[in-house]
């Protein structure tokens, strides 16, 4: 028989090695699958790399894909640190986009230096409120936050469907359910050819890192994550901390909504979040909730996505191949965590060990 024993001896380098091996294993497994479907896996992989790094333009596209993932992951990581399973990032992004779009569409005469800060604040507030609602019920009545936040995603999405085909529909779009394009005063300026959201992202990564690791509130959040009772005995106001942290978590996700409508799409559609909120949950988890690691993981995911879009145009291989490979990598990496934390020992061996110790 095989016994499972907790590992204590693994160095950081070894655990990184394990994860790399897992990714390699996933690529191998996905490669076999691609081969089976009649494509050359090496060509698919190479063209994916080419699609995300091959030119300055493609590299910029990869960064643009990474920005929303990183900021949402930062938001999610704050909630996850308290073991508050906020899986409502998708909805918080959508509501942030909704609020920002309101100003872009209906206060369209504002000068740009008023407009952008206003959109910024509105999106953060809307995302924060969307997270606060489930947080309130969790803190007050213990309502299951995983399921609550999940439902909030779909309500947010349907609200946008409603306005997109109803009150906010662009009359010039002739029957098609489309919202009008924003004016130039509602567009995020570009720095080095990428909307300024990337600078804000860098700043946010640093701020969240400092907040979690160097401030009192960050420490309190970590204590609540370890044990709510400990936090309570230590005299912390657990409810207040959960509520305020969730506003922060939702606000970060809300900002993503503004980045997308103002920096990328220049309009609002119900697909604005496009699954980012869900992917970000996975990237956050894989990054072990750590802000600097989040940047790396999210960038890798963005490369996969960007590469997937590219192989579709280059080889007419469906872009879903990227999603498939992404899924496989996830399985392998999630599975590899086990081998990082535990070790399999043959029972005979342990028996011998026990005998040895007894003797």
């Amino acid at each position, binding site marked *: 028989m095989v016994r499972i024993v907790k590992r204590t001896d693994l160095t950081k380098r070894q655990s990184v090695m394990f994860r790399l091996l897992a990714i390699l294993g996933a690529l191998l497994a996905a490669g076999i699958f691609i081969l089976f479907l009649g494509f050359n896996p090496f060509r698919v992989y190479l063209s994916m790399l080419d699609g995300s790094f091959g030119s300055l333009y493609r590299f910029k596209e990869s960064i643009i894909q990474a920005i929303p993932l990183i900021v949402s992951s930062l938001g999610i990581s704050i909630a996850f640190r308290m073991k508050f*399973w906020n*899986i409502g990032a998708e909805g918080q992004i959508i509501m942030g986009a909704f609020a920002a779009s309101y100003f872009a569409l209906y206060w369209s005469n504002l000068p740009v230096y008023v407009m952008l800060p206003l959109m910024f604040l509105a999106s953060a507030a809307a995302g924060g409120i969307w997270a606060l609602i489930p947080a309130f019920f969790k803190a007050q009545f213990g309502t299951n936050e995983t399921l609550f936040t999940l439902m909030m995603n*779909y309500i947010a999405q349907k609200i946008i469907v409603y306005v997109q085909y109803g009150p906010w529909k662009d009359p010039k779009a002739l029957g098609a359910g489309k919202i009008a394009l924003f004016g130039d005063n509602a567009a995020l300026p570009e720095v080095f050819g990428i909307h300024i959201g990337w600078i804000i992202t860098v700043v946010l990564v640093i701020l969240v890192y400092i907040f979690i690791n160097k401030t009192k509130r960050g420490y309190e959040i970590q204590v609540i994550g370890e044990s709510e009772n400990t936090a309570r005995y230590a005299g912390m106001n657990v409810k207040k901390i959960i509520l305020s942290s969730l506003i922060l978590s939702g606000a970060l996700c809300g900002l993503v909504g503004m980045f997308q409508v103002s920096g990328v799409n220049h309009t609002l559609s119900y697909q604005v979040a496009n699954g980012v909120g869900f992917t970000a949950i996975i990237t956050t*988890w894989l990054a072990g909730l750590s802000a600097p690691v989040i940047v790396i993981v999210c960038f890798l995911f963005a490369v996969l996505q960007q590469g997937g879009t590219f192989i579709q145009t280059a080889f007419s291989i469906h872009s*879903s191949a990227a999603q498939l490979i992404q*899924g496989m990598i996830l399985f392998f990496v999630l599975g590899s965590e086990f081998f990082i934390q535990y070790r399999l020992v043959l029972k005979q061996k342990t028996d011998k060990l026990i005998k040895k110790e007894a003797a």
Partner: protein
Amino acid sequence: MTFISILTFILTGAVTAGTPLLFATLGEIITEKVGQLNLGVEGMMLMGAVIGFSAALSTGNPVLGILAGMIAGACGALIFAFLTITLRANQIVSGLSLTIFGTGFSSFVGQKMVGQGLADSVRNSFAPVKLPLLGDIPVLGPALFNQNVLVYAGYVVAVILAIYLYKTRLGLNMRMVGENPGAADTAGINVALYKYVHILIGGMLCGIAGAYMSMITVPSWQDGVTGGRGWIAVALVIFVTWNPYKAMLGSYFFGALSILGLYLQGYVHIPQSIFDMLPYFATIIVLIMISLKKSKENNPPKALGEPYFREDR
């Protein structure tokens, strides 16, 4: 049209639209009752949809189509079970990964089938079959007893599952695993085995739900054929408070909501998006109410989503 005929029309549509929801919901109920929160329902449905459809397309055999869908759903569930039970990975993340994988898998495998339709022989085998006597009851007869074979299968599965959960020894054991795996382990129940078996059955039901969508609801292949119904099923499980009998009512009710906007178009103008919002809204209300009431009956399984490792105790 008279009021009665409109009502009959809507009810019939509700049951037809609610049946895939029912299968997926029953699948997720089994999974959650044994303590595992599998957010991969949408992924398993899509896997079942694409494999079921391609099997029915190539063999022309509807039974093989449904069976293939079941197996595909079970394969998805097996990945989830292996990750969360044997390898102890986080359930939420594993479930979401399964959905990403299943979505990609179905679009990739299905890319060459887009727009292709099933043979008439397959379609005809899912034509409504009127049950004698029962089918003649006004309103309810045509809605409930003049339906395709899988609708009837849905009734049977729901009742069997309810009896299994509440009236059998095995059902009691599996609920114990979901409520308190530590106690179940002490009582000599093989926690991991129970979880594996029930997750796999849950996956099979989700696979059937997906195959229903691709083979009956839309008998030609289209990308993302399940259209988010997997998530509605996750909501439904809560809405019906983990009860298979209520799952029938709930599924048909949510099924009705999904078609009401379309059916009422000529009479009152309420956009479909409003009806689409209601299931999630209603689910939140139920979620809040069960947390307020603190009655033991309707609450989520106590150990839902929590990992169980014997060594950690």
